[in-house]
C-alpha cells in the first residue's frame, strides 16, 4: 500500500513538472516574440502639410520623443513661414543690409549652394512666380498669367540677387527679389527633429515624414530597412507606389506635377516653375525623387531634378550627395548609378 502511494506521488510530480515546464516555455515564447520595440505614430498639421512622427525608443517614452520632435517642427514652421517676423524683415529690407541669425543664414547659404550646383534649377527666389501662377497658397485659385506679367516678375527672380555677408551675419536683396524658405523648411524641420530625438536617445528608431519629405531616425526594429514607396504619379490613388526603396538611414524627398496643378486645353500646368522660363517646367519628367543625407538637401535637389529633367546636368547630382530617380511621362524610370542598391521591398 505504502509503495503504491509513493509511486503515485512520483508520477504526479512528473506530470505536474511537465505541465509547469510547458506553461513557462509558452510564457517565455510570448515574452520574447513581443520583444520588438513598439512604434508610436502621430500625425499633425505643420508647414502647410501633414507631418508624421513614427518613433520607438528603449530608453525614454516614445510619446515624449514625439512631443519634443513636434515642438522643434512647430518652432521652425513659425520662424520660416512666409509671413513670419523673420522672413518679413528680410523681404521688406528694400535693398538694404539686413541682419539675420545663424540659423537663417545657414539655410540661405545651403539654398545658394544648391542653386549654384544646379545652375539655378533650384532657386529660393522663385516664389513671386509661384505666387503669380496662383500656386503659392492652398487658398488661391491657379490660372495662366499674361506674358507681360511673367516677364515683369522674372526681372526680380534670381538667386544671384542674394548678397551674403557671412562675417557680419547679414544679407542684401537686389532687384526687389524675395526669398522664400518655407519649401525647404519642411526638410529642415525633419533634419532638426531627428537631431532633437537623437540627442535624447541616440538608439531611437523610426522616421519623420513631412508631406512626403522623409528622414530616417533609425532602422525599423533597429535592424530592418524602412520601405519607402514612391507615389505613382499617374495613379488615381495617392497611396499607389510606382517603385520601392529600402532605407536604413538618410532622407528622401519627391517633387511631382500631380499635386498642385490645373489642366487647361489639355495642357497640365503645375507648381514647379522653371526660374529660367517663368513657366511650369516641361521636359517629360513627371516626378523626381532624391536620396540625400539631409532631408532639406533632398527636398531642394528633388525640386532641381524635376526642373532639370533627364538632361546631362542631372548626372552631376550624385557628386553633391544626391541620388536621383526620375519618372518620365511614359512612366519609364531614369536612375542615377548607385540608386539600384536601394531598390526593393
Amino acid at each position, binding site marked *: 500500500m505504502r509503495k*503504491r502511494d509513493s*509511486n*503515485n506521488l512520483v*508520477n*504526479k510530480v512528473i*506530470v505536474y513538472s511537465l*505541465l509547469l515546464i*510547458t*506553461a513557462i516555455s*509558452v510564457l517565455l515564447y*510570448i515574452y520574447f516574440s513581443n520583444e520588438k520595440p513598439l*512604434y508610436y505614430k502621430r*500625425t*499633425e*498639421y505643420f508647414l*502647410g*502639410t*501633414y507631418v*508624421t512622427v*513614427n518613433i520607438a525608443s528603449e530608453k525614454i517614452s516614445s510619446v515624449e520623443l514625439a512631443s519634443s520632435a513636434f515642438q522643434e517642427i512647430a518652432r521652425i514652421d513659425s520662424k520660416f513661414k512666409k509671413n513670419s517676423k523673420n522672413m518679413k524683415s528680410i523681404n521688406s529690407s528694400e535693398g538694404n543690409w539686413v541682419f539675420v541669425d545663424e540659423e537663417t543664414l545657414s539655410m540661405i547659404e545651403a539654398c545658394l549652394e544648391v542653386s549654384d550646383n544646379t545652375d539655378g534649377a533650384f532657386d529660393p527666389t522663385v516664389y513671386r512666380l509661384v505666387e503669380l501662377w496662383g500656386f503659392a497658397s*492652398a*487658398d*488661391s*485659385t*491657379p490660372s495662366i498669367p499674361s506674358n507681360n506679367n511673367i516677364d515683369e516678375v522674372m526681372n526680380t527672380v534670381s538667386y544671384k540677387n542674394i548678397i551674403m555677408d557671412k562675417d557680419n551675419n547679414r544679407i542684401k536683396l537686389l532687384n526687389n527679389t524675395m526669398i522664400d524658405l518655407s519649401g525647404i523648411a519642411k526638410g529642415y524641420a525633419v533634419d532638426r527633429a531627428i537631431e532633437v530625438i537623437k540627442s535624447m536617445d541616440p538608439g531611437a528608431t523610426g*522616421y519623420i*515624414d513631412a*508631406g*512626403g*519629405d*522623409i528622414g530616417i531616425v533609425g532602422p*525599423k526594429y533597429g535592424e530592418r530597412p*524602412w*520601405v*519607402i*514607396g*514612391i*507615389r505613382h504619379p499617374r*495613379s*488615381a*490613388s*495617392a*497611396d499607389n*507606389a510606382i517603385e*520601392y526603396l529600402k532605407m536604413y538611414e538618410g532622407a*528622401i*524627398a*519627391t517633387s*511631382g506635377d*500631380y*499635386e*498642385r496643378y490645373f489642366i487647361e486645353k489639355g495642357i497640365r500646368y503645375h507648381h514647379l516653375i522653371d526660374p529660367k522660363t517663368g513657366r511650369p517646367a516641361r521636359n517629360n519628367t513627371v516626378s523626381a*525623387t532624391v536620396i540625400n543625407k539631409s532631408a532639406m538637401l533632398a527636398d531642394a535637389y528633388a525640386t532641381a531634378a524635376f526642373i532639370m529633367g533627364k538632361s546631362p546636368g542631372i548626372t552631376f547630382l550624385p557628386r553633391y550627395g544626391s541620388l536621383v530617380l526620375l519618372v518620365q511621362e511614359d512612366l519609364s524610370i531614369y536612375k542615377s548609378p548607385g540608386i539600384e542598391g536601394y531598390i526593393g*521591398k
Partner: protein
Amino acid sequence: MKLIGKYDWLLIVFVGFLILITLLPFSNGSNYNAFVYINNEMTYKIDLTKDGTYLVKEHVVVEVKDKKIRMKESDCPQQLCVKMGWISTPGVPIVCIPNKVMIIIEADPNNLDYDVITQ
C-alpha cells in the same frame, strides 16, 4: 496503477486550452478603420468595411467604397485633397489644408508592402 488520473487529465486539458487562447490572434470586430481629424482633433472613426458617404464638416464629403476611402467633395479652391483619390493604406494621409481635415487609415503594419510614401 494509472500514471495520470482523471483530474490530472482535466488539468492538462485546461492548461492546453489556456495555451491555445494565448497563442490565437485576437479578432475584435473590424480592425480596418479610418480616422477623420478636424483641427487636429480626432472627430470620426469610420469603418472601412462598410460602404457609405459621410458629411464630416460643412462642404466636406468623405466616401468609403470597397475598403478604400477618398475625399469626394470639398469646397477648397485647389481641390488637392479630392485629387488625391482613393487611399487604402496608412502610407499617406489625405489632407485638406484650407478645411483642416485629415483622413488617416489604421491598419496592421505587417500586411503592408511599404511603410510610408514619398510624394
